[in-house]
Each structure stands twice: as structure tokens, then as C-alpha cells.
């Protein structure tokens, strides 16, 4: 409930192979080693290898591959 009130990402990480993201605005950039996702308050960058978006809809996206690092930056609308 907190994430919706605070307009923040809801991230579910399963090991280092799968990540499920909700509550985002869209994709800023995407390649096999880095995915930058825009949120309402901040930006989330996923670093890894062989990253593939298994599905991408308005509400949820699921990324699979080898996830090395997650990085948050302030300024989501940027």
C-alpha cells in the first residue's frame, strides 16, 4: 500500500535471474546490458547481462537475464 501512496516502484526480485516491476511510467532506454525505467519520483536502472523483457504492459513488466546491479537515481520525470 505504501508504494502506491508514495508513487514509488514496487520491485520483486527473484534471485538474480528475474525481476518484476510495477508502478512505473515507462522505459527510458533499453539494451541487453542496461534497462533504464522511469518512475514518478525516481529512475531505476537495471544492470546485467542478456536482459530481456519477458512482458511489458501498462502495469507490470518482467525482466529476465543475469541481474548484476539495481541503481536508483532521483528525478523520475527526467
Amino acid at each position, binding site marked *: 500500500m505504501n508504494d502506491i501512496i508514495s508513487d514509488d516502484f514496487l520491485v520483486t526480485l527473484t534471485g538474480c535471474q528475474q525481476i518484476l516491476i510495477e508502478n512505473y511510467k*515507462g*522505459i527510458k*532506454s*533499453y539494451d541487453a546490458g542496461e534497462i533504464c525505467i522511469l518512475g514518478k519520483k525516481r529512475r531505476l536502472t537495471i544492470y546485467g547481462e542478456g536482459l530481456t*523483457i*519477458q*512482458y*511489458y*504492459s*501498462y502495469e507490470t513488466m518482467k525482466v529476465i537475464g543475469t541481474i548484476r546491479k539495481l541503481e536508483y537515481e532521483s528525478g523520475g520525470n527526467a
Partner: protein
Amino acid sequence: MTSGILFIIGTYEIEMSGISMERCLNLCSKQGIVMWKLKPVENGYRFLIKRSCYKDLISVSKKTNTKIQTIGRHGLPFFFEKHKKRKSFFLGMTVCVLLIFLLSQFVWNITVTGVETYSKENILKFAEKGNYKIGTYKHSIDCNTLEEKIREQFKKIAWVSCSMTGTRLKIDIKETLDQNTTQNVKKPCDIVSNKTGVVTFLSIKNGTPLVRPGTKVKEGDTLISGLIYYYSDDFQKTQTDKIKADGTVYLKTKELYYENIPIVQYKKQYTNTRNQISNIKIGNLNISLPVKKKIFHTDILQTEKRLKLWGDFYLPISVVFQKQKEYKVKKETLKEIQGKSILKKRVVKYKKQLKQKGIRILGEKITYEYEKNNAEAKGYFVVEESVGKIRNIHPLTKKQEKYITPTTAQPK
């Protein structure tokens, strides 16, 4: 799972290129277009979308000035669209699926396992009499009723389990109970003795024991009753319940042994073997193929192999293989030592079989005799074995009721 759904609904494989591709992706998601397997390629992105979302994607791409290229079309709707002129093909496919579905609704194979005293044929004939035969609609088969009927008809069967797997009716039988056997009854029942002897060990899981170690029991006597009696403080019966009796009872019994072999024996020396297909059976239709005539002194072994699609999905088609083994007969007369040696080997084999069944041999008395025509081994084994078979609940006799009634008397 997802791949299966995508295959059924049909998908377009799209390659996107241009300057503002991410904007296009985000707009698509806002329009309700779900993108699957989105991955970057050399000049842009490649992904799958639902067949119904294609028009929306085109309008979004025009708006964002991105280039959309259809790489492939996958799934059933496209397959049907491509082959819509081949009506007979689809008709054939539908008929085939319906036929397989229809065939899967009937019993095409009945197997019996675990019989020793009774023959498989006997059990199958009995099942057939009760309308459990090949070609019966499988949903009309009541395995519980069949189990009950088999237990009632064949008294030596201690445990029976019937199950339907695919198009096969499996009848699994045990004539001797072992510790690994789990009772599969669904109704309240008694456990009765299937042998005559003396109780040596008793372990009750459910039910009222009617015997104790040292009690002499006859075949058919109730060992554990499924009736539970409740008593008031003044030892008056207030209530009766019926449950599934369960437990282990060991009995000391006397197994009679008799074996004889003729002194003059004719042994077969096989010279030639021939294999061929002799018959093809389709339902009740039996097609006999030409086979080489039987030569004098030939053993014929026939094995029937039922065809199946997969697993337990048997078809009503079977092939009969025939093996013809020619032999020469050689006459041999056994000496006393030879006869005794053969009989001793058979006794050892019999003891081994008893041990494999979990039966403990406590003692034995076997004598060997050599007569004019026969060599004989006769005697008995004293054994300890697990006994008990399921029977519908019978009311207790007055003697049994007295046995279970609690008293104020001190135990002896």
C-alpha cells in the same frame, strides 16, 4: 504456459526501428498493448504482440514516426487462415481428434497382477461376467464395487485394488498381506483371517480387536472388528460406530508341502526357433495371417501385444506374435540320488519364495521317498505370517460382545 496461450490467440512478431522507439513502446503500453519477449536487436527492438492489437500498434507507430516491420505470424489463427481452403484436411483432423476422444472413453485393456493361487483368466472371466469387459464405457465402471465383488468371490484374496488409468482397467491383487500394503477400502469394514492358526502378534491401528496373542483362529474368523462400542459408567452399551478396521496380525500356521516328480522323464532339446505374426485383432474381428504349419514336436508360444498411442491409452487393435520352437525328445530315468537332489532344490526354492513374501519359517518336517514311478517330498512347514483380509462389517456374536465388554475384574 504463456507460450501456449500465445500460440492459441496468435501473435505477430514485430521489429521496430526509428528515433523515438522507447516513446512508441511506452505509448503502446498506455494503449493497452502488451508486448512479450521484448529484446533489443541491431537497429531497434523485436517483440511479440497479440493479433488483435496490430492495428493499434500501426496507429501509434505513425504518431511516433517509428518503422514497424512484421517478421512473422505465429499461432493457430494464422495456421487456420493459411489453410482455410483445405476443408477436407480440417475435417479429417477434427474427425481424428473426436475419434481419439471417443476411443479414450472406453476400456481397451484389463490387466491383472499379483495372482498366485488363482489364474488371471479366472479373474478376467469373473470381471467380464460382471460387465467389466473390454469395450465398456469407462465412466460406468465402479472400481469399489468390482473390488468388493472380487473379495467376495475369491476367498483367498487378502487385498485387491482396481483403478482406471487411461483406457486400462488395472486389477492389483495380493494373496498375502505384507507390511507395505495399505488398505484402500472406502467403506467401514472388518479384518478377518484368511488362514487357520495361532495369533502370535497383534498391532491395531483402527477397530476393536477380537483376538489376543495365543488365540486359536480359523479361516474366516474376525480378527479386528470395524464396530466400536461405547459404554456408560455402569458398562451398558450406549452407542455403536462403524469404522474401517486396520492393523497387523501375525499368525503361526502350518503349511503343508507336497511335491512329486516322475522317475522317467522326457526332456526337450530345442533345435529350431521361428518367430512370426500370426493374427491381427481389431475389436472382435480376428484376422489370421498365413503361418507355416505346425511340425510334430513343436512348442508354440503366442504373445499378444496391444497397440497404444501413449502411456495407458490403449487402442482396440492387437498383434499376436507366434514363436514355434521345434524340439527332440530325450528319455531319462532318474536315480534315487538325482530325484532327491531335484526335490531338495525345489524345497529350497519354495523356502526362498516364502521368505520373499515376508513369511518367517519357524520349523519344518519334510521326508523324501523314492518309489517305482515317483520321487516324492512331503511334510509341512511351521510358519509365521501376516494375515487378514477385508470383509463387510458383520455384527458381533454374543461371545464376542462379552469378550470386549469392560469389567471391573483385575486383569489376569
